[in-house]
């Protein structure tokens, strides 16, 4: 197993910090919310002020409290659904990729079907058939989300498993006589971790997106708070038309920021998997500092006769040990 390197890329660090903030808010959000998000006793439609940092809604509720409280449901459902979907995709992908044959054909067909049927309309339809008591249950919604979101990860993991299957160390394990399941989970598994991590993050991103979308459509419980529900209320009260930006913007931006943090971390994982994506040369700012005009072009290696001086001086003086 390769050793874990701490991410150096600023993109990844920003992503991790951002995600960390939201994770913290998930835990302490409801505690630090200044008011009860359901309370309607405030003056409606206030723009941001000291008492209400994000203003109030048309119904007289505090936007900031809604945002903080809503963080928990959004993140929890999104994460759990994403993790559940990823577990399914690991089992399916590993089995299909490693066992091959009929198993692979059957599982691949299954994933192709799930992949091709568009998730959101299917979710809407399934949701509408549920008895009205169950309809808004976030757990059920989370379950259904994970049932529609696993196919992508399964396909990616299957492809990776298939290429790993041919590698020497797997062959060695097979010869020794390790059981199939053991090979799958303790030999191939660890090498799948980077791709798995990327797939997990992507699936979580997808789940958060779908969940908030369903909430925006009013299909989730309207008695608990999440960011999508905030947008639902904003939309049904025509907040956008009335330009009540303090109501419309925060939940949407929050969703976008969570997504962005996941995507940034994924960048880091991409760079880990694919060394070519790592910052090989220098950034524009670094180049300006050193005094190089243009970025190097392929097939036109730059000639800088002064750039060698520092390094050569070091060599003749006897190395840097």
């Amino acid at each position, binding site marked *: 197993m390769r050793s874990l390197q701490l991410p150096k890329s600023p*993109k990844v660090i920003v992503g991790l910090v951002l995600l960390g903030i939201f994770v913290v808010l998930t835990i302490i959000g409801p505690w630090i919310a200044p008011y009860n998000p359901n309370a309607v006793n405030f003056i409606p439609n206030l723009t941001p002020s000291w008492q209400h940092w994000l203003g109030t809604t048309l119904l007289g509720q505090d936007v900031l409290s809604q945002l903080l409280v809503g963080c928990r449901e959004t993140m929890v459902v999104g994460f759990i659904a994403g993790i559940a979907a990823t577990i399914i995709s690991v089992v399916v992908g590993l089995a299909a990729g490693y066992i091959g044959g009929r198993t692979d054909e059957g599982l691949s*067909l299954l994933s*192709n*079907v799930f*992949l*091709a*049927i*568009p*998730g*959101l*309309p*299917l979710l*809407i*339809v*399934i*949701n*509408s*058939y*549920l*008895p*009205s*008591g*169950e309809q808004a249950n976030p757990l059920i919604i989370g379950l259904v989300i994970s049932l529609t979101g696993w196919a992508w990860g399964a396909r990616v993991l299957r*492809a990776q498993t298939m290429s790993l299957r041919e590698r020497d160390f797997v062959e060695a394990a097979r010869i020794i006589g390790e059981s199939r399941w053991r090979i799958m989970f303790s030999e191939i598994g660890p090498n799948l971790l980077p791709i798995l991590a990327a797939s997990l993050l992507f699936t979580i991103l997808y789940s958060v*997106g779908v969940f*908030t*979308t369903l909430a*925006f*459509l*009013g*299909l989730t419980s309207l008695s608990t708070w999440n960011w999508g529900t905030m*947008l639902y209320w904003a*939309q049904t009260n025509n907040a*956008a*038309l*009335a*330009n009540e*930006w303090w109501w*419309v913007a925060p939940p*949407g931006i929050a*969703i*976008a*920021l*969570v*997504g*962005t943090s*996941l*995507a*940034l971390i994924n960048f880091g994982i*991409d760079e880990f998997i*694919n060394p*070519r*994506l790592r910052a090989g040369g*220098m*950034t*524009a700012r670094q180049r300006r500092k050193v005094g190089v005009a243009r*970025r*190097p072009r*392929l*097939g036109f290696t730059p000639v800088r006769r002064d750039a060698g001086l520092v390094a050569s001086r070091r060599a003749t003086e006897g190395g840097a040990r």
Partner: protein
Amino acid sequence: MRVFLRRIGIYAFTAWVTVTVNFILPRLMPGNPIEQLIGKLQGRVTPQEIEAIKLQYGQGLNQPIVVQYYHYLDQLVHGNLGVSISAGGPVSGILSSHVWYTIGLIGVSAMVSFLIGTALGVIFGWTRGSRADSLIPVATFLQSTPYYFLGLVFVMIFASRLHWFPLMGAYAPGLTPGFHWDFISSALRYGQLPLLSIVLSSLAGWLLGMRNMMVTIIGEDFVLMAVAKGLPRRRVIWHAARNAVLPSIANLALTIGLLVSGSLLVEQAFNYPGVGILLLNAVGNLDYPLLQGIFLLITFTVLSANFLADTLYYVLDPRTRTAKAH
């Protein structure tokens, strides 16, 4: 060729699964949604319509399920999608009057965002290390923004501040739809903001994917060879881009599905009378026939788009044509 036929088979199978799922779901759900629906509708619709619904869903009839299934498929093949409860009228008729707006919106936005996103991705990938790289976090942010949120933001900006674009609907009130220029130009005008919302959000996805692939491909030997051969820079970029675009096309399945779903919501934000609004109204009214009809329509459209994308990939990448499995 075998690979190609297999793909067709998979799509046909998926279509069949969709149709069957549509059939099974209402009969499967706990709490018998049809009875609930009928209960809700008492007094609001005529008894004949209730009979029609019962027929459609096999309630109160002692037909074995296989027979019901056969009837269902039979109806489907004849284009009969049932009768809408909320709108009162054949589902197929309702759909056909709304579908063109959505197809126009989705079709144009998909093409525009793919072309622009991919082109920008090529540029970003090739000029990696230049100042343009600082735009990448912006693109990431845009990609994570839900389509409908962008729609709302645009409504806000253009509602109160600038009155450049019309905000709601698909065409100016008072015009009758038809193939005359008044209507068409109005439709185009009204379509701009929804289009912009969809394009801005989905473009970022294409951009980032393409950029990463370009960077990977540029590291390959054949690109260095192209430069070593003394080819003009444009040709080198073209060769690299042609290789780099393949995964984007392979992923079209997922992306088209997301695009379609997102567009439906944008329609909501703009009150754009396409299939999206229909879907949401149907959900609100528990108008199952309409709901099912829309679901089938959306799914078949996405499947067709995927099929086209697969065909395109098959044509573009010669490596798929040898019998080797992937």
